């Protein structure tokens, strides 16, 4: 695929940057964790949300060698729950960003490439969906559908794609006017070919970088929806859900008496988001000449 090549070069160029290395390490660590957590979790069944039977005295234990992060209100091992929730985080962040990116790219490029009515309608749709808070969509789904991944993912994608459509449109608009695209059109190349090779191929890099840094925001927003209890069902291994159970079932005093219930899942959200941000920031600086220029207070 042609667009990936310059992107790989871009990544390669930034490999030696200190921030990029940290971001990459964190991201890889979380990815690996999401794959192997169910094998390394000390209590994998509890990690999935099953409540241990006949062990009532295990509720709300402080962190200890047996239970590294302590246990939750139902006596489940928090460490197992938290590390197994990395999978849910990865699934939500990546699918939200990936789906939004695909839809946004298609809509944005089409709007820029085909002028007239197509442009008008697609831009109207973009503005329409940009103007709806994702929590509203989540509410609608919550009213009609069962809890689950689809609620979180669809409600985020419904508003997120519009942002990608917008930035794609802005970039693509600049490109489709360029001579070589006009020449390609005149030379009778098919629209699909021109769009893929000469439009998408050119604008994809900054949009991909934006997508990487958005992985973090997607995770934060998804966690917020799950924390509100609008997304995944109770007991599901997800950091937002675990936090919700930690705070709501214990009431406000949860984090004064049992801080570990709140601390660890939040810490993992923080680390994962940080990883994505650190990964994307150096790439963004590399691509944006305005951020690259050396400036200082020189007078």
């Amino acid at each position, binding site marked *: 695929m042609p667009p990936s090549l310059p992107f790989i070069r871009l990544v390669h160029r930034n490999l030696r940057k200190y921030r990029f290395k940290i971001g990459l390490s964190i991201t890889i660590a979380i990815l690996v964790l999401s794959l192997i957590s169910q094998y390394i979790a000390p209590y994998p069944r509890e990690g999935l949300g099953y409540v241990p039977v006949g062990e009532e005295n295990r509720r709300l234990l402080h962190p200890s060698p047996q239970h590294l992060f302590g246990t939750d209100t139902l006596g489940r091992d928090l460490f197992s729950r938290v590390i197994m929730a990395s999978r849910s985080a990865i699934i939500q962040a990546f699918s939200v960003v990936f789906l939004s990116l695909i839809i946004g790219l298609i809509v944005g490029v089409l709007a820029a490439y085909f002028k007239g009515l197509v442009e008008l309608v697609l831009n109207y749709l973009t503005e329409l969906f940009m103007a709806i808070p994702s929590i509203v969509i989540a509410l609608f789904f919550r009213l009609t559908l069962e809890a689950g991944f689809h609620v979180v993912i669809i409600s985020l994608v419904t508003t997120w794609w519009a942002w990608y459509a917008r930035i794609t449109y802005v970039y693509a608009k600049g490109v489709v006017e360029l001579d070589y695209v006009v020449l390609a059109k005149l030379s009778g190349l098919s629209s699909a070919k021109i769009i893929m090779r000469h439009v998408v191929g050119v604008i994809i890099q900054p949009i991909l970088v934006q997508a990487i840094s958005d992985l973090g925001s997607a995770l934060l927003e998804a966690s917020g929806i799950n924390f509100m209890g609008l997304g995944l069902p109770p007991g599901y291994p997800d950091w937002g859900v675990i936090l919700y159970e930690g705070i709501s079932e214990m009431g406000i005093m949860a984090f004064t008496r049992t801080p570990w219930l709140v601390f660890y899942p939040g810490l993992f959200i923080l680390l994962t988001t940080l990883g994505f941000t650190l990964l994307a920031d150096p790439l963004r600086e590399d691509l944006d000449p305005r951020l690259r220029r*050396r400036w200082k207070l*020189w*007078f």
Partner: protein
Amino acid sequence: MVLAVRAGGISIGYIDEEEEYIVWAVRGVDLAIEEGDAFCLVGESGSGKTTFASAIAGILPPHAVTRGKLYIFDRLAIDESTWNFNGLRGRVVSYIPQNPGTSLSPFLTVEDHFYYVLRDTLRYDREKSRKAAMEALLKVGLDRGVLEDYPHELSGGMQQRVLIAIALASNAKIIVADEPTSAIDANLRASVLQLLGRLNREYRVTLLLVTHDLASTSIVCNRLAVMLAGKIVETGRTISVLRNPQHPYTKMLLDCVPLLGVKKPLKPLPGEPIQVVEDKAICPFRERCPRAIDKCVEEPPLKPVGDEENHYVKCWRLTGVESG
């Protein structure tokens, strides 16, 4: 005679983003501008005129690097790599920038521009600065109505004249004008140049006029320097250089512009402008010179021309070295 500007072997370069190489825009220039001179700096695009002018105005960007020395009224402003323009900017040297469209803040009215400049240089209050502004605007042929305008409400020519007026308002002793007429109509161009010339004659303001328009030099300037690839290849009294150009490059420049009172066929300037990355001592014009000789791989010295006062040229051909 007091020297307004004295450059001693000054070189100015720009460091690239990765800090890997330096583009030398000005390379080892020796130059003296006397107080009261109207000094023209001509040369093709990219020859380093703006760079040299901004060094005198004290506004080299942070990624510029310097060598050599620059004195302004005997104040050492650039000493190798250290710069000190405190007290010089605005009060001793003022500046007319090259791009009128971007050189005024879009968020301030013309009056505000005057006010902040005059308050900070001459401690004027609103009232006084308004009066000074009106006077200065009158000089450049604008009426006081523009004071309330924002830059985007003015035409390019008006913006340029506002820039000139602001530069004049603080009564600096040296005015560095970087192509001040590039955005103005031909009819106004002459009057702006005349205005600069008059300031120079009547108020003894030292003028450094950067231009690539040789015709304007003859109106205003008494001295002239021709710059090529960061070096001064010929300098002297304007009349002397225009009447009796020595350097092949100067000759070619003169061949391609019409000059008042001189009848001659016009010829296009051959070759591409030169950009210098490494600082090799060769004659920069060698590649394009119709009369190049083997010796030209070395840099020629700046030699006086005949018995003309202050007329110097940098060419092996004129130093007695013939064919080779």
